[in-house]
């Protein structure tokens, strides 16, 4: 109790005063949570408030955020090549920034990090790990982390999973993400094994193989008898659902109770159809990206994305003016992760190119004191602006994946034409009724569809949106389990 009380104080000091995390204390905290759960079956009252970060009123939030932003800006200006030249040109003193000044610092485009990731690493830091994005387009972006950062993130993730009860020592966790997604895979697997659960990585193999592993019976001491937690991408989950239902699998063949799904737009249709295969599972959705890791968003029960304000600054910026958006207006997320969560490579105002709308209070959800946005609408470069407003990848995917006639994941594309957009999509079988149903579903979601092209062969699609499941990892032919 004393040990765990000290660990809690040390943790609170990092959260409140942005001093680096102490790995030993984090480790003690994990032990404390495990022991508490084992003894009492649950954590004490107030544990969610304690671990969820401080509840800040608007004024304190701005105060905390500007102080942390300044700290990160000073480090960036003094210790990184990229920002030292930028601040010199700007003529701004990073230690005297006000909240209003933040908008004067130009956003950091993806291109800058892509071209020279080393220029973002702080002098004097000790980078140990270079991770690259699994990006669906072009050259991957790199970010450097220290060994401490990776360990701390793994432990913080373990604490978060334990606190929410999403992963327990009895779980068997299947990770079906790209084997090259080293950052996410490393931190997640470290968290899982620290909790005491079992994990294995399948990679993005033939879905039949992944399903065979998922339905395998286990007889491990103290563990559930089947894989109980699946971590994957939306499109690959779609492939699993499609392949599983076609192969005659049903909920009785699986023991999955939680599916952590992310990296792409997760649609209601996907979740509904997924339950046909796996039964009643709980979906865990979050938002994170390599460049701004580990500052990300958590989903609340009302479907907002929430960002913990002491971990980083989220701005929603009008893509045309690069200024803060107005209420209800769509913008791209511009993100600054703060210390102590980000130590080696610093990014200020990183342009994620992800579109969302801000959500303003008062909110009634459980994370109401965190900054809130709508769910992701899609990448800016994939969205289309028509005379009557934006068309987002989310609208298209939601419309298509809600229909059984469209195989999962929906393989589709859309582009601007006179008076609206043209949409193309792969379907099981082309007939007139499906054409009407798709058109109707798109219109219901506000897509001004003027032309609709259906294909039975996905390879015939001309403008297909990229899907992570297509980063397929190959196996020797003989090792694929035949169903």
């Amino acid at each position, binding site marked *: *109790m004393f040990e765990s009380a000290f660990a809690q104080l040390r943790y609170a000091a990092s959260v409140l005063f942005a001093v680096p995390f102490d790995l030993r204390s984090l480790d003690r905290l994990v032990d404390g949570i495990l022991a508490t759960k084992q003894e009492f079956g649950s*954590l004490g009252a107030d544990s969610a408030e304690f671990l969820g970060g401080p509840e800040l009123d608007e004024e304190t939030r701005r105060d905390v955020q500007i102080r942390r932003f300044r700290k990160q800006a000073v480090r960036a200006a003094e210790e990184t090549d990229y920002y030292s030249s930028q601040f010199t040109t700007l003529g701004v003193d990073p230690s005297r920034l006000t909240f209003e000044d933040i908008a004067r610092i130009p956003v950091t485009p993806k291109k800058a990090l892509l071209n020279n990731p080393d220029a973002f690493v702080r002098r004097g830091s000790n980078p140990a790990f270079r991770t690259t994005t699994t990006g669906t387009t072009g050259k991957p972006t790199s970010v450097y982390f220290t060994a401490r950062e990776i360990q701390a993130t793994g432990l913080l993730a373990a604490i978060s999973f334990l606190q929410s009860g999403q992963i327990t020592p009895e779980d068997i966790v299947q990770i079906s993400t790209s084997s090259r997604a080293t950052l996410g895979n490393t931190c997640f697997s470290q968290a899982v094994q620290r909790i005491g659960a079992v994990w294995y990585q399948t990679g993005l193999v033939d879905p039949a193989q992944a399903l065979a592993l998922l339905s395998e019976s286990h007889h491990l001491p103290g563990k559930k008898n089947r894989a109980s937690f699946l971590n994957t991408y939306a499109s690959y989950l779609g492939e699993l659902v499609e392949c599983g239902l076609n192969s005659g699998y049903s909920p009785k063949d699986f023991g999955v109770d939680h599916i952590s799904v992310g990296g792409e737009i997760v649609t209601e249709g996907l979740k509904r159809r997924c339950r046909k295969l796996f039964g009643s599972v709980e979906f865990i959705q979050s938002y994170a990206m390599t460049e701004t890791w580990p500052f990300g968003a958590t989903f609340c029960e009302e479907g907002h994305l929430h960002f913990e304000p002491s971990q980083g600054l989220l701005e929603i910026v009008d893509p045309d003016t690069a200024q803060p958006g107005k209420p209800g207006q769509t913008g791209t997320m511009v993100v600054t992760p703060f210390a102590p969560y980000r130590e080696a490579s610093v990014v200020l105002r990183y342009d994620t190119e992800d579109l969302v709308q801000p959500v303003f209070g008062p909110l009634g959800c459980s994370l109401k004191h965190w900054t809130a946005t709508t769910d992701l609408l899609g990448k800016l470069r994939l969205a289309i602006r028509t005379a009557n407003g934006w068309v987002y990848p989310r609208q298209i995917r939601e419309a298509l994946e809600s229909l059984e006639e469209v195989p999962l994941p929906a393989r589709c594309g859309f582009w601007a034409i006179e008076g609206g957009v043209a949409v193309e999509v792969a379907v099981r079988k082309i007939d007139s009724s499906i054409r009407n149903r798709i058109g109707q579903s798109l219109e219901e979601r506000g897509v001004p569809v003027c032309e609709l092209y259906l294909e039975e062969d996905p390879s015939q699609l001309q403008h297909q949106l990229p899907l992570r499941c297509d980063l397929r990892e190959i196996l020797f032919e003989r090792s694929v389990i035949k169903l």
Partner: protein
Amino acid sequence: MVLASIVVLFHVVTSVILAWLYFRRYTMTRPPIGVFNLGDVAVMLVMVILVPLLYLMLPIWMVIVLLTLAGLSILYFTWEPVLKSSWFIWLVTLVLAGADLFTALAPDINPVWFLAINNIVMLISVVGVTNLWAQSGMKARHAAILGAALAVYDLIATSLLPLMNDLFARLDGLPFAPTIAWPINAAGPWLGIGLGDLVLTAVFPLVMRKAFGRMAGIFAMAFGLGAIGLLILSVLFGFVEIFPVMVVLGPLMVCQYAYWIQRRPERTTWQYLQAEPTK
């Protein structure tokens, strides 16, 4: 002498039984994260060794401040789950503490008044401290280890060194003095039992009940009270004057733990509440 024995024994029995009833009826607020563990046993032993030395070394006013702070906080968290409304908890806490301080410090008050009040305050404190430990996940194993270590310490401190005698003399009549006592005659010597011994006697039935079931708890209560009863009798008949209570209680605790652990594994709080839900 007989009256003093009856008064002390009455307080001992009442505190042990009240602690037992409180354990089943009230849930104290536990910290969000943390379980009583062996590290805490070690910390307690260090405190048991250091705190008496502090009491002997510090100026008397500082000892009074420390005792009062400890007394106030123990009273507050003991009443918290019982009275619920925070002003009511403070009211009861402050009235009790005020009465203790007043009868101890005001001049020209018969010391019997102080003993009467302080005995009640200590009785409540025993209920609070034992429940705080047991409800924080203290295991029977921890209590047995603590008991064994204290038996050794008590033997050295009370019998071989003048430490305990000095301590009792020093704390005599101070507010929140950690003893339950009653004068033997008008001249002043009194019969008493230290708070630490009483806490160990009262906590053991709770952790044994949690660990091994109701019977184990009742046996622990019977053995503990029986031992203290016999000790008071032997004082009454003049066999001893000062006796290290833990020297008897410690081995008794170890024996009971050894008996039960061979028959069934120790339950966690969660398993105990699954098997014997409260309310």
